[in-house]
């Protein structure tokens, strides 16, 4: 189900909340070398968790995510220049306290990883990266910022990261912090006292397609457990559930948010992945820019589309797609029943000529063809006051 590269013969890494998950009876899996909860059967499991986030609130331990700080060196401006070089979005547009979805690219225009870039201060940035790509990412950032006047620090192990997600997330978190949350817009962040801990980073971000926050607290076990318990207690009146990677995956799939090694990878470029709006070609330079401009001029041959199964059958990650003739045309990158829609949905790469909404294609499920059709994405879009996608 997950992108995970397994690390055989290596001890699984644990977050500070590992024993909390085990006490809650979570089903644990190896996710990218991390021992992580996939669901909590005792409180209802994956579907209940998914629905809690769509209708109320849920909390995820996402401490396995990585954090890289890039700050100014001897003279101001070096950190921004470095971030501009290694990421495709325009970090110069960020105000202090604002974040943006972006990606680090190889010179070929394919993905090192997708990242959220936060502007912490005048020339000070925090890049939040994926768990499975942590070592690769940090090496990439160090290597490619060497020529710039900046300081790169890996802070991954310093933070326990909790994602509090759902329409009641703000109600829950507001009980625990003095920082006013209402003025914090989507993809902005603030700092405040949370559970008595000073200066906690509180970002209105997430990976669920729902309103919510991600908070970063010190990663010692005592502090992490104290905050987790306080969030659960504060959320009790809203029916908060601890949520695992299973629900995280179905939630992000409904919202068409990319997962590394699935929708994006080192062999898929930004245009194919449909993420061009986050690539700012007006920037004079960033790694991957030239290749993307060339690919744009040449035109792309495959496109990421949303599929809905027409016939009974569930498309799963890695299944083949084919034309009516049976000729192979593409592959499912992520597929699952959608708990919100009650239908079987998937994302797939198909020839661009077959990417328009309504096109019928087939999915090979255990040797048999099942009809699906291309549908508009995201599959799920929340009703809300603010914009539905992170600020470009």
């Amino acid at each position, binding site marked *: *189900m997950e992108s995970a590269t397994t690390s055989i013969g290596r001890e699984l890494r644990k977050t500070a909340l590992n024993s909390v998950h085990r006490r809650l009876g979570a089903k644990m899996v190896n996710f990218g070398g991390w021992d992580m909860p*996939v669901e909590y*059967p005792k409180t209802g499991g994956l579907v209940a968790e998914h629905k809690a986030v769509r209708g109320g609130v849920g909390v995820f331990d996402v401490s396995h995510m990585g954090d890289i700080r890039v700050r100014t060196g001897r003279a101001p401006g070096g950190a921004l220049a470095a971030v501009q070089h290694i990421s495709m979005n325009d970090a110069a547009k960020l105000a202090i306290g604002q974040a943006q979805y972006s990606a680090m690219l190889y010179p070929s225009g394919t993905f090192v990883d997708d990242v959220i870039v936060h502007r912490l201060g005048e020339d000070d940035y925090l890049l939040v990266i994926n768990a499975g790509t942590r070592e690769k990412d940090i090496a990439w950032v160090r290597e490619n910022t060497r020529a710039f006047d900046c300081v790169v620090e890996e802070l991954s192990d310093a933070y326990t990261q909790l994602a509090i997600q759902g329409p009641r997330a703000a109600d829950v978190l507001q009980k625990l912090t003095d920082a006013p949350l209402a003025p914090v817009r989507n993809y902005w962040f603030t700092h405040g006292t949370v559970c008595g801990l000073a200066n906690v980073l509180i970002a209105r971000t997430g990976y669920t397609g729902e309103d919510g926050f991600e908070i970063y607290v010190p990663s010692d076990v005592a502090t992490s457990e104290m905050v987790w318990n306080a969030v659960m207690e504060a959320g009790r009146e809203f029916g908060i559930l601890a949520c695992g990677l299973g629900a995280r995956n*179905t939630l992000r799939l409904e919202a068409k948010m990319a997962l590394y090694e699935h929708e994006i990878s080192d062999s898929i470029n930004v245009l194919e992945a449909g993420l061009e709006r986050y690539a700012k070609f007006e920037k004079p330079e960033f790694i991957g820019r030239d290749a993307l401009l060339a690919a744009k001029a040449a035109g792309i041959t495959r496109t990421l589309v949303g599929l809905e199964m027409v016939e009974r059958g569930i498309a799963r990650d890695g299944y083949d797609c084919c034309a009516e003739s049976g000729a192979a045309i593409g592959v499912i990158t992520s597929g699952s029943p959608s708990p919100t829609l009650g239908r079987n949905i998937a994302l797939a790469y198909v020839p661009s000529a077959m990417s328009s909404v309504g096109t019928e294609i087939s999915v090979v499920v255990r040797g048999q063809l099942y009809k699906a059709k291309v549908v508009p994405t995201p599959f799920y879009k929340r009703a809300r006051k603010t914009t539905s996608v992170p600020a470009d």
Partner: protein
Amino acid sequence: MAYPTEYRYTKEHEWVNVAGNVATVGITDYAQHELGDVVFVESPKVGSSVTAGKTFGTVESVKAVSEIYAPASGEVVEANPELQSNPEKINTDPHGAAWLVKIKLSNPSELAGLMDAAEYEAYVAEKQKEASA
């Protein structure tokens, strides 16, 4: 959930309840728990023949696909129609109303190697110990 003592169990977490020469087959409570929310059941057609140890259907949850292995050879005489519309029954009543198929056995001696309830419970306890290690 207790494992009925009159049933026999496979290492692939199916249960078998034999009456005469017909075996009713389902998946165990352990299996449904491992799968999570069941959303889809694919059963063999009535009249088809199945072979011991070979897959003859699938049970799918939101996050996983699980193949079902025939515990014994024979002909499928009934498939539980209830599971087509209410597959989630497997999560609530795996040992009872959510049986999968009934097989008319062609070689009942194939069932001799299966575990009884006590053996299966010990087998599952071992699995759980591995998982929490």
